[in-house]
């Protein structure tokens, strides 16, 4: 709680610093004007299966909300200072909550060879499609599993981002405070929980002032028309590692180091993507702590191409390989499902646009090849006008209940989103 508070204070301080930096530049050089945009959106997801929910879980509608977003952005006349603010006011009926969320609030200083961005900002790295290896920035799994629009999949980082463009290569350095993923909890979701019931739970987040700051770097460049990138990260796992300590269950966020690379370019009439990375768990190098993820190699290969006019097919094959599998098997507590050493997942994306691109059909499927489970996301969107669109879709989990996706199968849902943008 205290670390949470201090994190919030840090975030606010950084954002204020960013905003005042940009504002100072504005006052000094004259603004080009501030552009205001936004939207109003309603989003409802209804559970498809009749299940007995524990009390306190949003059972019939895991998501039911009304949201208004206001975005302000501006640049000074020479174009060397800018700011962006994106705020959501949200009435979340599923969990009976009303809140104001700062999704982004950052200030930029820009020169020809370098730029700086300070404040809350969304950062996306890597070449996977809904598969993340070298992108260790915070994500919102609740938004994903309840069918929120794609932009809600990522959470902003409270960070200082430095970019340098000295010549053929681009360098990016991100120094960020810790922010956890928004992971599914029993407030909206139902899943088997191997931890003892009835004990109170709390999480301990890494602080910003105890050497726990997160540092990530990326180098990227072109080799002819291929793009290469290398990544390193000194960060933390963003879902809690739970431990029973006497009379309570404490969740911590173990340290994580990653290193990896990606490559993307044209092959035949499509685009080939390759990405690989190594996840090092420095708090459990031997792999004997069952609460902490085993060190892993992760890799993906993807290919996408057009099938016919306005139709695209994308395929990916993804694998995670545990480094200390014997230690994992020896120390896994009874009652926990056993994972394969190599976990393989295939994904398929098919997109077809109709009627002058006003109708979009999209199908995304995760197919667990090792765990024999699946997660299928069909959706259909119609743009009534430039301002108004509606989307119906579903999040369908199935297969082996011990698998990552299969364990979510009591949470399959159908959703409806309507957005009016202005």
């Amino acid at each position, binding site marked *: 709680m205290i670390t949470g508070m201090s994190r919030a204070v840090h975030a606010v301080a950084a954002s204020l610093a960013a905003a005042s930096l940009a504002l100072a530049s504005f006052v000094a050089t004259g603004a080009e004007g501030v552009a205001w945009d936004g939207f109003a959106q309603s989003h409802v997801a209804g559970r498809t299966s009749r299940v007995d929910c524990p009390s306190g879980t949003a059972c019939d509608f895991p998501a039911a909300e009304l949201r208004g977003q206001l975005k302000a952005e501006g640049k000074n006349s020479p174009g060397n200072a800018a700011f962006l603010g994106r705020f959501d006011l949200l009435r979340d009926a599923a969990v009976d909550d009303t809140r104001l969320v700062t999704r982004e609030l950052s200030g930029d200083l820009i020169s020809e060879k370098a730029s700086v961005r300070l404040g809350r900002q969304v950062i996306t790295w890597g070449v996977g499609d809904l598969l993340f290896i070298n992108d260790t920035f915070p994500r919102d799994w609740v938004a994903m599993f309840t069918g929120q629009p794609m932009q809600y999949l990522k959470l902003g980082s409270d960070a200082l981002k430095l970019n340098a*463009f000295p010549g053929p290569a681009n360098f990016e350095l991100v120094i960020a405070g810790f922010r956890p993923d928004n992971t599914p909890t029993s407030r909206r979701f139902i899943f088997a929980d191997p931890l003892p019931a009835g004990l109170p739970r709390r999480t301990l987040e890494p602080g910003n002032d105890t050497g726990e700051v997160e540092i990530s770097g990326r180098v990227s460049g072109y080799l002819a028309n291929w*793009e290469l990138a290398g990544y390193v990260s000194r960060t933390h796992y963003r879902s809690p590692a739970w431990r029973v300590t006497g009379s309570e269950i404490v969740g911590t966020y173990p340290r994580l180091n990653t290193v990896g690379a990606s490559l993307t*370019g044209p092959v035949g009439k499509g685009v080939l993507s390759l990405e690989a990375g190594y996840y090092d768990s420095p708090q459990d190098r031997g792999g004997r702590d069952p609460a902490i993820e085993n060190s892993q190699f992760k890799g993906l290969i993807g290919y996408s191409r057009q099938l016919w006019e306005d139709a695209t097919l994308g395929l990916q094959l993804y694998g995670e390989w545990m480094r200390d599998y014997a230690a994992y098997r020896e120390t896994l507590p009874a009652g926990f499902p056993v994972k394969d050493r190599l976990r393989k997942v295939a994904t398929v994306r098919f997109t077809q646009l109709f009627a002058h691109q006003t109708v979009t059909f999209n199908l995304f499927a995760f197919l667990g090849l090792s765990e024999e489970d699946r997660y299928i996301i069909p959706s259909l969107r119609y743009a009534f006008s430039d301002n108004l669109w509606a989307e119906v879709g579903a999040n369908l989990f199935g297969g082996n209940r011990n698998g990552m996706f299969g364990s979510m199968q009591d949470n399959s849902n159908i959703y409806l989103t309507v957005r009016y943008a202005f």
Partner: protein
Amino acid sequence: MKPFPQIALFLLAALAMVSAPARAADPSAEEIVKRSLEAFYYAGNDMRSKVHMKLINPQGNVREREMTMLRINLGKSGDQRYYIYFHGPADVKGTSFLVWKYPGKESDRWIYVPALKLVKRIAADDKRSSFVGSDFTYEDVSGRNLEDETHVLVRKEDLGGRPAYVVESRPKAAVDYSRRLSWVDRERWLPLKEEYFDARNEPLRTFTAEKIEQTGKYWSVTMRAMKNLQSGHHTEVFFREVGYDMGLKQDIFTERYLRDAPSQWVR
């Protein structure tokens, strides 16, 4: 043996004198199409324009796209780079496209999604696909290859008070049209009108250059329309603030500026 080369030279010179004026009066169909492509898609070393697009369905409902388009030519190879930034509608504001175009090879294409700060390379085997839902194809926006079609000069006639060559072009590979007729301005080399026909030789689409203006030494089509005669859908495009040889640098056409629009040019 000596006089023979002299006679040959004389004959060659005489031939050249006869054929030269004839060629000047009537360039080959390939030459006309080549010059038209150069005038329409390659004018200047670089180009900047604001582009306003109106997509109008048969019921008269209008959707609008507001863009800034930047283009640079890379030397004599015919390679070009395009940068397109969307100012509107609100839901796509800040989205940008980057295209590296090569004659005779598929383009490389990237899209930037601002809400996710995501740069994504997109499969680009779709030059005959609609550009952002309009009646224009990607190829209509960034140009086609001379060699993709065979060309025949049909006739010369005036169109809207301009002298024009009428050229018929037929695609070598099967595409959505079986032939097109182009009216090419005989002095400015810009296309004034194009009629596309489908496989059954029914009229498919019609392009018209509604307004042509001069910027410096270059002529530009600043208002253009494409009508789908079979669906009744049509698109009008207005080019404003057209500038050539602005001194755009090649590094604008890279991922860095895809993420951070170059404010000097994108306003």
